[in-house]
Protein backbone atom coordinates (compact mmCIF):
# COMPACT_ATOMS: atom_id res chain seq x y z
CA UNK A 1 0.00 0.00 0.00
CA UNK A 2 1.39 3.40 -1.02
CA UNK A 3 1.82 5.19 2.30
CA UNK A 4 2.93 8.70 3.19
CA UNK A 5 4.20 9.30 6.70
CA UNK A 6 4.28 12.82 8.12
CA UNK A 7 6.81 12.46 10.91
CA UNK A 8 6.51 15.35 13.38
CA UNK A 9 8.55 13.70 16.17
CA UNK A 10 11.00 16.18 17.70
CA UNK A 11 14.53 14.93 16.86
CA UNK A 12 15.72 15.29 20.48
CA UNK A 13 12.79 13.44 22.09
CA UNK A 14 13.96 9.82 22.34
CA UNK A 15 10.79 8.48 23.93
CA UNK A 16 8.66 10.00 21.17
CA UNK A 17 11.04 8.67 18.52
CA UNK A 18 10.74 5.16 19.95
CA UNK A 19 7.01 5.34 19.17
CA UNK A 20 7.84 6.48 15.65
CA UNK A 21 10.17 3.55 15.21
CA UNK A 22 7.48 1.11 16.40
CA UNK A 23 4.98 2.71 14.01
CA UNK A 24 7.34 2.42 11.03
CA UNK A 25 7.93 -1.23 11.78
CA UNK A 26 4.19 -1.85 12.06
CA UNK A 27 3.68 -0.20 8.67
CA UNK A 28 6.24 -2.42 6.97
CA UNK A 29 4.87 -5.48 8.80
CA UNK A 30 1.48 -4.71 7.25
CA UNK A 31 2.92 -4.40 3.77
CA UNK A 32 2.99 -0.63 3.40
CA UNK A 33 5.65 0.96 1.22
CA UNK A 34 6.39 4.11 3.14
CA UNK A 35 7.67 7.48 2.01
CA UNK A 36 8.48 9.72 4.97
CA UNK A 37 8.45 13.49 5.26
CA UNK A 38 10.58 14.28 8.32
CA UNK A 39 8.91 17.57 9.14
CA UNK A 40 11.45 18.85 11.66
CA UNK A 41 14.01 18.86 8.85
CA UNK A 42 11.64 20.06 6.14
CA UNK A 43 11.18 23.75 5.40
CA UNK A 44 7.45 24.34 5.05
CA UNK A 45 6.19 27.84 5.63
CA UNK A 46 2.88 28.43 7.37
CA UNK A 47 -0.27 28.75 5.27
CA UNK A 48 -1.04 32.40 4.47
CA UNK A 49 -4.78 31.80 4.33
CA UNK A 50 -5.04 33.46 0.91
CA UNK A 51 -7.04 30.71 -0.87
CA UNK A 52 -4.80 31.11 -3.93
CA UNK A 53 -4.58 27.29 -4.06
CA UNK A 54 -8.32 27.31 -4.78
CA UNK A 55 -8.79 30.28 -7.08
CA UNK A 56 -5.39 31.63 -8.24
CA UNK A 57 -3.55 28.42 -9.16
CA UNK A 58 -6.28 25.81 -8.60
CA UNK A 59 -5.02 22.70 -6.80
CA UNK A 60 -1.55 24.05 -6.11
CA UNK A 61 -0.15 26.51 -3.59
CA UNK A 62 1.68 29.28 -5.48
CA UNK A 63 4.22 29.59 -2.65
CA UNK A 64 6.43 26.67 -3.61
CA UNK A 65 8.18 24.74 -0.89
CA UNK A 66 8.30 21.13 0.31
CA UNK A 67 4.56 21.21 1.07
CA UNK A 68 3.86 21.06 -2.70
CA UNK A 69 5.80 17.80 -2.98
CA UNK A 70 4.06 16.52 0.15
CA UNK A 71 0.64 17.38 -1.32
CA UNK A 72 1.54 15.60 -4.57
CA UNK A 73 2.60 12.53 -2.58
CA UNK A 74 -0.57 12.54 -0.47
CA UNK A 75 -2.76 12.88 -3.58
CA UNK A 76 -1.22 9.69 -4.97
CA UNK A 77 -1.23 7.69 -1.72
CA UNK A 78 -3.60 5.11 -0.32
CA UNK A 79 -2.74 5.84 3.29
CA UNK A 80 -1.62 9.01 5.05
CA UNK A 81 -0.10 8.46 8.49
CA UNK A 82 0.55 11.45 10.70
CA UNK A 83 2.76 10.92 13.74
CA UNK A 84 2.89 13.81 16.16
CA UNK A 85 3.19 14.66 19.84
CA UNK A 86 -0.28 15.58 21.09
CA UNK A 87 -0.33 19.30 21.85
CA UNK A 88 -3.39 20.11 23.98
CA UNK A 89 -5.41 17.40 22.22
CA UNK A 90 -4.21 18.62 18.81
CA UNK A 91 -1.40 17.97 16.34
CA UNK A 92 1.85 19.69 17.20
CA UNK A 93 2.68 22.89 15.32
CA UNK A 94 5.28 20.91 13.34
CA UNK A 95 2.66 18.47 12.02
CA UNK A 96 0.16 21.24 11.55
CA UNK A 97 2.43 23.33 9.32
CA UNK A 98 2.15 20.54 6.74
CA UNK A 99 -1.51 19.70 7.31
CA UNK A 100 -2.62 23.35 6.90
CA UNK A 101 -1.02 23.29 3.45
CA UNK A 102 -3.04 20.25 2.33
CA UNK A 103 -6.23 22.27 1.66
CA UNK A 104 -5.21 22.38 -2.00
CA UNK A 105 -6.30 18.71 -2.14
CA UNK A 106 -9.97 19.62 -1.81
CA UNK A 107 -12.04 21.73 -4.15
CA UNK A 108 -13.43 25.18 -3.30
CA UNK A 109 -16.93 23.85 -4.11
CA UNK A 110 -19.06 22.75 -1.20
CA UNK A 111 -20.64 19.36 -0.70
CA UNK A 112 -24.24 20.17 0.15
CA UNK A 113 -25.34 17.20 2.24
CA UNK A 114 -24.64 16.71 5.94
CA UNK A 115 -22.20 18.74 7.96
CA UNK A 116 -20.59 21.19 5.53
CA UNK A 117 -17.29 20.25 3.89
CA UNK A 118 -15.64 20.90 0.55
CA UNK A 119 -15.86 18.46 -2.34
CA UNK A 120 -12.78 16.32 -3.02
CA UNK A 121 -10.51 17.47 -5.84
CA UNK A 122 -9.26 13.96 -6.63
CA UNK A 123 -11.24 10.81 -7.24
CA UNK A 124 -9.67 9.12 -4.26
CA UNK A 125 -7.79 10.50 -1.32
CA UNK A 126 -5.91 8.34 1.20
CA UNK A 127 -7.21 6.80 4.40
CA UNK A 128 -5.96 8.62 7.49
CA UNK A 129 -4.17 7.10 10.46
CA UNK A 130 -3.41 9.66 13.17
CA UNK A 131 -0.87 8.49 15.71
CA UNK A 132 -0.44 10.79 18.69
CA UNK A 133 2.36 10.62 21.20
CA UNK A 134 1.41 11.47 24.80
CA UNK A 135 4.26 11.74 27.30
CA UNK A 136 1.77 11.23 30.14
CA UNK A 137 -1.86 10.09 30.18
CA UNK A 138 -4.42 12.86 29.65
CA UNK A 139 -7.96 11.55 29.04
CA UNK A 140 -9.28 14.99 28.01
CA UNK A 141 -6.57 15.43 25.38
CA UNK A 142 -7.06 11.84 24.19
CA UNK A 143 -10.74 12.31 23.44
CA UNK A 144 -10.16 15.66 21.66
CA UNK A 145 -7.43 14.05 19.55
CA UNK A 146 -9.73 11.20 18.49
CA UNK A 147 -12.41 13.72 17.45
CA UNK A 148 -9.83 15.76 15.56
CA UNK A 149 -8.64 12.79 13.49
CA UNK A 150 -12.26 11.90 12.73
CA UNK A 151 -13.02 15.46 11.57
CA UNK A 152 -9.84 15.67 9.48
CA UNK A 153 -10.75 12.40 7.79
CA UNK A 154 -14.27 13.66 7.07
CA UNK A 155 -13.04 16.91 5.54
CA UNK A 156 -10.26 15.21 3.56
CA UNK A 157 -12.69 12.54 2.29
CA UNK A 158 -10.54 9.76 3.73
CA UNK A 159 -12.24 6.40 3.08
CA UNK A 160 -11.14 5.07 6.49
CA UNK A 161 -9.64 6.59 9.63
CA UNK A 162 -8.22 5.63 13.01
CA UNK A 163 -6.71 7.58 15.88
CA UNK A 164 -4.09 5.82 17.97
CA UNK A 165 -2.34 7.09 21.08
CA UNK A 166 1.09 5.89 22.08
CA UNK A 167 2.42 6.40 25.59
CA UNK A 168 5.61 5.37 27.40
CA UNK A 169 5.60 1.63 26.84
CA UNK A 170 7.62 -1.24 25.48
CA UNK A 171 8.50 -0.94 21.81
CA UNK A 172 6.85 -4.28 21.00
CA UNK A 173 3.57 -3.19 22.58
CA UNK A 174 3.59 0.11 20.69
CA UNK A 175 4.19 -1.78 17.47
CA UNK A 176 1.30 -4.12 18.29
CA UNK A 177 -1.07 -1.18 18.93
CA UNK A 178 -0.19 0.32 15.53
CA UNK A 179 -0.56 -3.01 13.74
CA UNK A 180 -3.94 -3.52 15.37
CA UNK A 181 -5.14 -0.11 14.17
CA UNK A 182 -3.95 -0.78 10.62
CA UNK A 183 -5.72 -4.15 10.54
CA UNK A 184 -8.94 -2.64 11.84
CA UNK A 185 -8.78 0.05 9.17
CA UNK A 186 -8.34 -2.28 6.24
CA UNK A 187 -10.02 -5.52 7.29
Amino acid at each position, binding site marked *: MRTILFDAAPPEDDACRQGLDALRRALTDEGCSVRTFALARTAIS*PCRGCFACWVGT*PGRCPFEDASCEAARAVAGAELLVVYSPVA*FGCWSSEAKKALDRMVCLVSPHFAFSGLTRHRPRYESLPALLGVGWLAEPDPEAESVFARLVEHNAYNLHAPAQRAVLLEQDEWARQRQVCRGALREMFQ
Partner: protein
Amino acid sequence: MRRVLLLAGSPRAGGVSLMLGRELLERMAALDFATEVRTLRVSGLLDAQEGRARLHAAFAWADTVVLSAPVYVDSPPAQVLKALEFLAAEPWRGDEPKRFCALFCCGFPEASHTAICLDVSRIFARKAGLEWAGGLGFGGSGALGGQSLAARGRMAAPVARALDMAAQALTDGRPVPPEARELAAKPLIPKPLYLFLAESGFLSLAWKSRTITRLGAKPYEKQ
Protein backbone atom coordinates in the same frame (compact mmCIF):
# COMPACT_ATOMS: atom_id res chain seq x y z
CA MET B 1 -6.49 48.23 36.35
CA ARG B 2 -7.12 45.37 33.90
CA ARG B 3 -4.44 44.51 31.32
CA VAL B 4 -5.73 42.60 28.31
CA LEU B 5 -3.57 41.04 25.61
CA LEU B 6 -5.12 40.11 22.27
CA LEU B 7 -3.22 37.33 20.53
CA ALA B 8 -4.30 37.53 16.91
CA GLY B 9 -3.89 34.17 15.21
CA SER B 10 -4.71 34.83 11.56
CA PRO B 11 -2.01 35.49 8.97
CA ARG B 12 -4.47 37.90 7.33
CA ALA B 13 -4.28 41.48 8.57
CA GLY B 14 -7.86 42.14 7.43
CA GLY B 15 -9.25 38.87 8.72
CA VAL B 16 -12.51 38.21 10.53
CA SER B 17 -10.88 36.80 13.66
CA LEU B 18 -8.79 39.92 14.19
CA MET B 19 -11.91 42.08 13.77
CA LEU B 20 -13.80 39.97 16.34
CA GLY B 21 -10.92 40.15 18.82
CA ARG B 22 -10.66 43.91 18.44
CA GLU B 23 -14.40 44.31 18.90
CA LEU B 24 -14.21 42.37 22.16
CA LEU B 25 -11.32 44.45 23.47
CA GLU B 26 -13.01 47.71 22.49
CA ARG B 27 -16.04 46.65 24.48
CA MET B 28 -13.90 45.77 27.50
CA ALA B 29 -12.13 49.13 27.30
CA ALA B 30 -15.48 50.93 27.05
CA LEU B 31 -16.85 49.12 30.12
CA ASP B 32 -13.89 50.02 32.31
CA PHE B 33 -11.80 53.06 31.43
CA ALA B 34 -8.91 51.64 33.46
CA THR B 35 -8.55 48.73 31.02
CA GLU B 36 -5.33 48.75 29.01
CA VAL B 37 -5.19 46.65 25.85
CA ARG B 38 -2.39 45.38 23.61
CA THR B 39 -2.49 43.37 20.40
CA LEU B 40 0.13 40.95 19.14
CA ARG B 41 -0.15 39.08 15.85
CA VAL B 42 1.39 35.61 16.05
CA SER B 43 2.29 35.39 12.34
CA GLY B 44 6.07 35.10 12.12
CA LEU B 45 6.38 36.25 15.73
CA LEU B 46 8.31 33.23 16.96
CA ASP B 47 10.76 33.10 14.07
CA ALA B 48 13.18 35.48 15.76
CA GLN B 49 14.45 35.91 19.30
CA GLU B 50 13.07 39.45 19.36
CA GLY B 51 9.52 38.20 18.64
CA ARG B 52 9.77 35.49 21.27
CA ALA B 53 10.85 38.10 23.81
CA ARG B 54 7.92 40.33 22.83
CA LEU B 55 5.45 37.49 23.28
CA HIS B 56 7.00 36.58 26.62
CA ALA B 57 6.86 40.16 27.89
CA ALA B 58 3.32 40.83 26.69
CA PHE B 59 2.12 37.58 28.21
CA ALA B 60 3.75 38.37 31.55
CA TRP B 61 2.24 41.89 31.47
CA ALA B 62 -1.37 40.79 30.86
CA ASP B 63 -3.86 39.60 33.46
CA THR B 64 -6.26 38.49 30.72
CA VAL B 65 -5.16 36.92 27.45
CA VAL B 66 -7.64 36.66 24.57
CA LEU B 67 -6.75 34.44 21.64
CA SER B 68 -8.67 35.25 18.48
CA ALA B 69 -8.01 32.95 15.53
CA PRO B 70 -9.46 31.10 12.56
CA VAL B 71 -10.10 27.37 12.28
CA TYR B 72 -7.62 25.76 9.88
CA VAL B 73 -8.26 22.09 9.11
CA ASP B 74 -10.54 21.64 12.13
CA SER B 75 -8.00 23.04 14.58
CA PRO B 76 -5.93 26.14 15.38
CA PRO B 77 -3.46 27.21 12.64
CA ALA B 78 0.14 25.99 12.94
CA GLN B 79 1.43 29.39 14.04
CA VAL B 80 -1.13 29.60 16.84
CA LEU B 81 -0.15 26.13 18.05
CA LYS B 82 3.48 27.19 17.99
CA ALA B 83 2.68 30.17 20.20
CA LEU B 84 0.66 28.00 22.59
CA GLU B 85 3.50 25.42 22.77
CA PHE B 86 5.93 28.25 23.50
CA LEU B 87 3.79 29.68 26.31
CA ALA B 88 2.98 26.30 27.87
CA ALA B 89 6.66 25.36 27.97
CA GLU B 90 6.93 27.55 31.08
CA PRO B 91 3.59 27.31 32.91
CA TRP B 92 2.51 30.51 34.63
CA ARG B 93 3.42 30.54 38.32
CA GLY B 94 2.98 34.23 39.11
CA ASP B 95 1.19 35.46 42.26
CA GLU B 96 -1.69 36.92 40.25
CA PRO B 97 -3.89 34.45 38.39
CA LYS B 98 -3.93 34.93 34.64
CA ARG B 99 -7.09 34.27 32.64
CA PHE B 100 -7.33 32.91 29.14
CA CYS B 101 -10.25 33.28 26.75
CA ALA B 102 -10.50 32.16 23.10
CA LEU B 103 -12.53 33.30 20.10
CA PHE B 104 -12.52 31.13 16.97
CA CYS B 105 -14.24 31.75 13.67
CA CYS B 106 -14.66 29.27 10.84
CA GLY B 107 -15.67 29.46 7.19
CA PHE B 108 -18.28 26.71 7.24
CA PRO B 109 -21.73 27.86 8.28
CA GLU B 110 -21.93 25.61 11.36
CA ALA B 111 -20.20 27.04 14.43
CA SER B 112 -19.68 23.45 15.63
CA HIS B 113 -16.50 23.42 13.48
CA THR B 114 -14.90 25.63 16.15
CA ALA B 115 -15.55 23.13 18.99
CA ILE B 116 -12.20 21.34 18.76
CA CYS B 117 -10.34 24.68 18.78
CA LEU B 118 -12.15 25.74 21.95
CA ASP B 119 -11.38 22.38 23.59
CA VAL B 120 -7.72 22.72 22.60
CA SER B 121 -7.71 26.22 24.14
CA ARG B 122 -9.17 24.91 27.38
CA ILE B 123 -6.54 22.16 27.61
CA PHE B 124 -3.83 24.72 26.81
CA ALA B 125 -5.05 26.89 29.70
CA ARG B 126 -4.77 23.93 32.08
CA LYS B 127 -1.28 23.03 30.85
CA ALA B 128 -0.05 26.63 30.93
CA GLY B 129 -1.31 27.27 34.48
CA LEU B 130 -3.99 29.73 33.35
CA GLU B 131 -7.58 30.13 34.43
CA TRP B 132 -9.92 29.11 31.60
CA ALA B 133 -12.38 31.95 31.08
CA GLY B 134 -14.33 30.22 28.32
CA GLY B 135 -14.64 31.09 24.67
CA LEU B 136 -16.87 31.81 21.71
CA GLY B 137 -17.09 30.00 18.37
CA PHE B 138 -18.46 31.79 15.32
CA GLY B 139 -19.56 29.97 12.17
CA GLY B 140 -20.04 31.41 8.69
CA SER B 141 -17.21 33.93 8.87
CA GLY B 142 -17.82 34.76 5.19
CA ALA B 143 -20.96 36.63 6.26
CA LEU B 144 -18.95 38.85 8.60
CA GLY B 145 -16.31 40.08 6.16
CA GLY B 146 -13.31 41.82 7.65
CA GLN B 147 -15.10 45.06 8.43
CA SER B 148 -16.43 46.24 11.76
CA LEU B 149 -19.59 44.62 13.09
CA ALA B 150 -21.42 47.95 12.86
CA ALA B 151 -20.87 47.93 9.09
CA ARG B 152 -22.72 44.60 8.91
CA GLY B 153 -25.84 46.11 10.47
CA ARG B 154 -28.65 44.09 11.99
CA MET B 155 -27.46 40.81 10.52
CA ALA B 156 -24.51 40.81 12.93
CA ALA B 157 -26.64 41.69 15.97
CA PRO B 158 -26.30 38.25 17.66
CA VAL B 159 -22.50 38.43 17.25
CA ALA B 160 -22.42 41.91 18.75
CA ARG B 161 -24.64 40.78 21.64
CA ALA B 162 -22.42 37.73 22.29
CA LEU B 163 -19.34 39.98 22.41
CA ASP B 164 -21.16 42.43 24.73
CA MET B 165 -21.93 39.59 27.13
CA ALA B 166 -18.40 38.19 26.95
CA ALA B 167 -16.85 41.64 27.52
CA GLN B 168 -19.07 42.24 30.54
CA ALA B 169 -18.26 38.84 32.03
CA LEU B 170 -14.50 39.19 31.52
CA THR B 171 -14.57 42.72 32.99
CA ASP B 172 -16.44 41.42 36.04
CA GLY B 173 -13.95 38.58 36.41
CA ARG B 174 -16.48 35.90 35.41
CA PRO B 175 -16.11 33.29 32.66
CA VAL B 176 -17.88 33.85 29.32
CA PRO B 177 -21.50 32.74 29.96
CA PRO B 178 -23.06 29.84 28.02
CA GLU B 179 -25.74 32.21 26.63
CA ALA B 180 -22.99 34.21 24.89
CA ARG B 181 -21.63 31.00 23.35
CA GLU B 182 -25.11 30.07 22.12
CA LEU B 183 -25.63 33.51 20.58
CA ALA B 184 -22.22 33.42 18.86
CA ALA B 185 -23.07 30.04 17.35
CA LYS B 186 -26.37 31.27 15.86
CA PRO B 187 -26.32 31.16 12.03
CA LEU B 188 -26.49 34.71 10.67
CA ILE B 189 -28.19 33.63 7.46
CA PRO B 190 -29.80 30.31 6.44
CA LYS B 191 -27.25 27.66 5.50
CA PRO B 192 -28.35 27.21 1.84
CA LEU B 193 -28.12 30.97 1.25
CA TYR B 194 -24.72 31.13 2.94
CA LEU B 195 -23.34 28.30 0.81
CA PHE B 196 -24.76 29.89 -2.34
CA LEU B 197 -23.11 33.22 -1.50
CA ALA B 198 -19.81 31.56 -0.56
CA GLU B 199 -19.76 29.58 -3.84
CA SER B 200 -20.56 32.77 -5.76
CA GLY B 201 -17.71 34.51 -3.94
CA PHE B 202 -15.21 31.85 -5.06
CA LEU B 203 -16.58 31.90 -8.60
CA SER B 204 -16.30 35.67 -8.87
CA LEU B 205 -12.70 35.57 -7.58
CA ALA B 206 -11.94 32.82 -10.09
CA TRP B 207 -13.56 34.87 -12.86
CA LYS B 208 -11.26 37.78 -12.02
CA SER B 209 -8.24 35.45 -11.87
CA ARG B 210 -9.28 33.84 -15.19
CA THR B 211 -9.26 30.43 -13.60
CA ILE B 212 -12.99 29.76 -13.64
CA THR B 213 -12.67 26.90 -16.12
CA ARG B 214 -9.80 25.36 -14.16
CA LEU B 215 -11.20 25.40 -10.63
CA GLY B 216 -11.38 21.59 -10.59
CA ALA B 217 -7.79 21.16 -11.85
CA LYS B 218 -5.92 18.08 -10.60
CA PRO B 219 -2.25 19.07 -10.85
CA TYR B 220 -1.15 16.09 -8.76
CA GLU B 221 -3.19 13.43 -10.56
CA LYS B 222 -1.40 10.08 -10.77
CA GLN B 223 -0.04 9.60 -14.28
